[in-house]
């Protein structure tokens, strides 16, 4: 008789190890594919995994077989019109083997080996060796945001936390306990009094004495306080640091005439990286897009990246707007605030000093991290020099220059490199 075994509950993912091996082996290619893919993504799309394409020749396992050339003879089925001795033109190389060509219908032909990696695998690869800066500090800051958690009862506290039920129970208990010798005597006296009253004739003197004593005792019992400080029980709350699991990221970009679409593309990629990275560390990440030329405006993603403005540049306008938004919508006790600013370094000359002051007074103190990237390959201008001062003053500030597309990832990498322990 055959054995029938249900294996369905046995370990799935038998191949998971092998999959990891595959990823490990082709890490370089996959990473390249990942960083290529980043360019095509919407900034907030972090839910999906990524399709990875690596050159098929890298993953083939070579074996020796007969090459083309020489004499081959093959039997095929489905002869329709051929007779022996017929000559037929060679089919095109590309379509060799009749319909057996392996071109796939989804666009990736034989020269690419494509597969999906999950969101987590994708992000792992993307942010390998990176860490959020100042996470430790985040915790320190976060301790100012607390939730009160019930932690039993205490004997001290403020009136509003009084636990009535417990307090009254204790009061009652105390009263019973303190009154107990009197109560006992009372009961005795009452009994004796009753006996005396039943006896005829009344012993008026004894009755009077018993009554006196009784009334004294009753007065004593009544004198026991209804409630005593000793009875008080308060609900106790202890403050527990509330982890801030939400972050807001400010993307600030210069959209003045000097910013070309190419420069903006570089900025976009940088922002995407930052967004992805933040959303890995925080449950909820909001993004605020601020673009500015001479005045700043909060916009949506589409407008942020794709509309173009002309005119001069006043960076401080964006910083002011950001300050206001923080004040209005993102209280620091609830939010971890990150900011990334991309610019071509242009600023109206007098404005740079204002920027520095704004940073010092009303922005940097509230931020977890501020990353400034300058996208150009010329001499630095005023803004850079002013920001250098900010850089020196705040450990949470960093600035880098990006010269071309290839530098985005390295710069990002450098900005968020794991600190050596």
């Amino acid at each position, binding site marked *: 008789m055959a054995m029938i075994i249900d294996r*369905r509950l046995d370990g799935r993912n038998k191949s998971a190890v092998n999959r990891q091996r595959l990823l490990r082996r082709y890490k370089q290619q996959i990473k390249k594919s990942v960083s290529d893919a980043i360019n095509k993504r919407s900034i907030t799309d972090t839910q999906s995994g990524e399709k990875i394409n690596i050159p098929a020749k890298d993953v083939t396992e070579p074996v020796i*077989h007969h*090459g083309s050339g020489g004499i081959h003879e*093959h039997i095929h089925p489905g002869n329709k019109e051929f007779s*022996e001795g017929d000559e037929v033109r060679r089919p095109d190389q590309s379509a060799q083997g009749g319909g057996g060509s392996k071109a796939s219908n989804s666009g990736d032909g034989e020269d690419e080996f494509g597969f999906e990696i999950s969101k987590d695998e994708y992000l792992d690869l993307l942010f390998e060796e990176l860490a959020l800066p100042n996470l430790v500090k985040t915790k320190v800051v976060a301790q100012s945001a607390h939730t009160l958690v019930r932690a039993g009862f205490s004997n001290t506290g403020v009136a509003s936390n009084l636990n009535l039920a417990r307090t009254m129970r204790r009061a009652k208990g105390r009263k019973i306990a303190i009154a107990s010798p009197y109560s006992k005597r009372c009961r005795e006296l009452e009994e004796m009094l009753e006996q005396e009253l039943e006896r005829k004739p009344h012993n008026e003197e004894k009755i009077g004495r018993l009554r006196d004593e009784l009334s004294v005792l009753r007065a004593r019992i009544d004198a026991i306080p209804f409630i005593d400080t000793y009875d008080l029980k308060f609900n106790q709350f202890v403050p527990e640091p509330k982890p801030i699991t939400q972050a807001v990221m400010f993307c600030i970009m210069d959209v003045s005439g000097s910013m070309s679409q190419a420069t903006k593309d570089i900025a976009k990629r940088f922002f995407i990286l930052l967004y992805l990275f933040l959303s890995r560390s925080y449950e909820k990440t909001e993004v605020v897009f601020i673009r500015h030329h001479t005045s700043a405006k909060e916009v949506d993603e589409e407008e942020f990246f794709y509309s173009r403005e002309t005119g001069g540049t006043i960076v401080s306008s964006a910083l002011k707007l950001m300050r206001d938004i923080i004040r209005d919508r993102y209280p620091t006790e609830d939010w971890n605030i990150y900011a990334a600013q991309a610019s071509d370094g242009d600023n109206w000359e007098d404005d740079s000093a204002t920027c520095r002051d704004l940073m010092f007074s009303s922005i940097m103190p509230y931020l977890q991290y501020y990353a400034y990237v300058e996208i150009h390959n010329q001499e630095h201008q005023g803004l850079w020099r002013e920001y250098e001062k900010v850089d020196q003053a705040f450990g949470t500030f960093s600035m880098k220059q990006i010269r071309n597309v290839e530098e985005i990832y390295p710069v990002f990498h450098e900005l968020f490199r794991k600190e050596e322990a």
Partner: protein
Amino acid sequence: MSEKRKKGRLISNQSDWTFDLIEEYNREIERIAKEVYHLDCYPVQLELISSEQMMDAYASVGMPIGYNHWSFGKQFVLTEKNYKRGQMNLAYEIVINSNPCIAYLMEENTLTMQALVIAHAAYGHNSFFKGNYLFKIWTDAEAIIDYLIFAKHYLAECEEKHGVEEVEDILDSCHALMNFGVDRYKRRTGGTLEDEPLVQSDRELSLQHHVNELWRKLNINIPQEKETGSQRIPPEPQENILYFLEKNAPLLKSWQREVIRIVRKIAQYFYPQRQTQVMNEGWACFWHYTIMNHMYDEGLINDAAMLEFMHTHTNVIAQPDFDSPYYSGINPYALGFKMMMDIRRICESPTEEDLQWFPDIANSDWQKTLDFAMRNFKDESFIGQYLSPRLIREFRLFSVLDDDREENLKISAIHDDVGYRKVREKLSAQYNLSNREPNLQVYNVDHQGDRTLTLRYYQDKNRPLSDTTDEVIKHLHRLWGFDVQIETVDNEGHAEITHRCPMSLHEELELG
């Protein structure tokens, strides 16, 4: 068939399977297979698995327990991709040549499909594994599972001791040469797979000793003796390249030799399957067809189930024409099934033509004839022996000659009186593995000089080695440790070095 159909006991008319129903189906199928058709099988073990587990099994090329290697991950990823895209149906079954014979049933299948798979795999393939001479000679159904477990553990241990990458390198190299890791003609005497794990540690020592001995002795020889060549390595050309490397490569560590051995053993285990694809699938299809029909005749399954079965069966044995977009060579299921059916037909109701072509089997007992065919042939000889003119006509087979010196392809034979034998002969040759794979052998080791390993490729019909050879020779080089070269010997016997690793400076410059 419906006239003779008995009003019997219908097992079930539902389409979802349950364990009880599978058991009952299996009982009936077993009865029919063994009592009515006298199939000789290993005991059966049916395992129900999910589609994901099926993909796992797929990825490890049907080994129930595979060692870890990235290529299996790649296979899985590919399978998964195709499956999700809907391009490919998962195979309905995977069956392991072991005792007991393990057949996987996928949970998504309907009850009828499960019955089909049981008949096909658990009794069809199973009896083939047990009966066919190649499997009898080359594989140990008793021990394979244990051996695979041993291999997995051994490799895991190696990874721990020597690092994942070291092991991966060796495995990569072995896989590249896997097709050249089999003995084609003669089984080495000695222990069975069963003893493998037990003697493994002893072997490690003695093997290393043997190699040391070999190279030590040789180094004593003085250069003048070189030409006399009293001792040649190998004494005769060796077709099993992995075997040669395992025994003779000078620099390998003993665990590396063992890894080569594992890959070699597994290649050998699968070798009969590669030689009997048409027969094996044909046999299994023939039996699922026959058994299902028998069940229907006995009234065990109803019309609906039969229609579902016929639908699937027809798909499985479909043979697209050469000019169809779905064509990808001859479908072994189609050819095998039709040939098996044809043999039965020749036995039962031969035509004039059959009497001429197959006087031996015409009007014989078809069960005995088929059984004989199953036991004593492989694809090549099976086709050479049994492909009938009638089938050649049915498939409209024709032969195309592709000679790269000619401008056009030539139709060298078709399904006509002059062509039958030619077609049959050529199709038979097409299934001859030694025709399909290059004849590459270890020829010589320059053991008195720089230890260059020379392989010889005996060229047939002017066919060169594939471009991938340059990659594979690097793997050879890694295992051998010294220079490796391949000499191509043409039909006239001229030998010329065609591949070399490492490449000489001159060649590298040329390529650069």
